[in-house]
């Protein structure tokens, strides 16, 4: 129960790493504003059952990361609860793979909008609250592609690299206010986002790993748990690779 009685905002909760993080946080006693694109019966039921099981509250919050008005309304809704926010986890993201010369500019801008600008907008809003309360932990989900490059993923990797720059700068600006800011760089994780990757490319990736398998969303969520909890009280401005040791 590393987050007992804490409150967290998590984006991208509908599936993959976000869903696993919602689960791990609530299993560890945290209440969650669970942000997702749009309501589904399955998601609502999932949130309800998880909340009952762990004796916490989980509030689904819906908005489209491409719509700033929707984001603003959602954030106001969160603020109106007038509760402290201990952790913000920026997970929501998207990719459209194409080799560099084939990327339409509107598409690159869209990916930056979702993966970077909207995260910054949310972070501005939430850290204002964190500065007032003088504590908080922000965790940005970047990617190893931001550090290593990734064939056919220019928009994605560059937007995720932007998150790393923001993480380091924000750490320097906010540490004195009691707020830590870190990033995780997951490798190849078994999520829907990677389901579209051809099998031969996946096995090429696995060959380069020290741990010869894909990562699981729950494994990423546990590293997020570490960064959100007091176990990492003196860790800030860092980028932690969770990639099974890719060479």
């Amino acid at each position, binding site marked *: 129960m590393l987050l007992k009685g804490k409150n967290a905002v998590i984006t991208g909760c509908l599936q993959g790493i976000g869903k696993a993080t919602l689960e791990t946080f609530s299993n560890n006693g945290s209440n969650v504003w669970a942000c997702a694109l749009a309501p589904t019966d399955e998601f609502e039921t999932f949130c309800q059952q998880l909340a009952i099981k762990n004796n916490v509250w989980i509030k689904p919050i819906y908005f489209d990361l491409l719509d700033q008005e929707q984001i603003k309304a959602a954030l106001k809704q969160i603020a109106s609860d007038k509760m402290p926010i201990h952790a913000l986890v920026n997970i929501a993201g998207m990719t459209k793979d194409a080799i560099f010369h084939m990327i339409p500019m509107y598409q690159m801008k869209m990916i930056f909008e979702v993966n970077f600008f909207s995260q910054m907008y949310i972070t501005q809003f939430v850290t204002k609250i964190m500065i007032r309360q003088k504590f908080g932990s922000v965790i940005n989900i970047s990617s190893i592609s931001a550090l290593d490059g990734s064939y056919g993923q220019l928009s994605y990797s560059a937007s995720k690299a932007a998150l790393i720059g923001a993480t380091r700068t924000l750490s320097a600006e906010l540490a004195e206010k009691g707020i830590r800011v870190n990033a995780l760089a997951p490798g190849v994780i078994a999520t829907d986002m990677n389901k579209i990757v051809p099998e031969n490319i996946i096995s090429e990736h696995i060959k380069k790993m020290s741990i010869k398998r894909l990562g699981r969303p729950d494994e990423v969520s546990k590293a997020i748990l570490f960064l959100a909890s007091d176990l990492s*009280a003196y860790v800030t401005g860092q980028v932690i690779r969770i990639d099974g040791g890719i*060479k």
Partner: protein
Amino acid sequence: MMEERLLEGKNAIVTGCARGIGNSIVEILAENGANIWACARKQTEEFEAKLLILSSKNHVEIKPVYFDLTDKDQMKIAIKSIKSEKKNVDILVNNAGITYNALFQMSTIDKINEVFDVNFISPFLFTQYVVKLMLKNKSGSIINISSSAALDGNSGRAVYGASKAALLCATKSLAAELGDQGIRANIIAPGITKTDMLSSMTEKVINETVMNTDMKRVGEPLDIANTVLFLASDLSSYITGQVLRVDGGM
């Protein structure tokens, strides 16, 4: 309700347990349910009393193991005694080390040899022995305590930083070699941490370093120990070959 502890029933070897960061590591691992072989150089009543209290408080077994890191025969005997207990070894924390501050041009060959012996060769050999034990049950987590000096190359830290960089590099190779056998290996690079080692630095250097951290404070041994806990536990099951800086943002 009894909460489940992160290292319930696991067995850990920790070196350099008498003071500072090692002392904190033993405390945190014990609180989280691990049985510990607590290695130190010298037997003292104070140390043994502390281990007894920790072990009864947390209902875990803690055994003191004594050897001098520079004495390879003593190390072998220590390993044999651990091995003779026929228990799984799940966690190894190479924490023991010595510090040395000297400008590059002023560093003596005797000191270079001594620092490399304690900070690099000894943990290297010790890990070779322990990995053999870990391979029997095909699982384990190795955590080596390096230093931010290994990454940053600060003035006056040529020998110390290089010895810790050597350890760091060896750990990465180890991770690559053992990943498919269920053994993970990671490195912690503490920044400036409140231990006896700090007394080797002048007040001026300490203040300057603190001003260069985002958090504007020195780290506590507990901060390092909690990161050891993360890397020792299944919370980090997909993390290997990594360096985690625990430095308040330098």
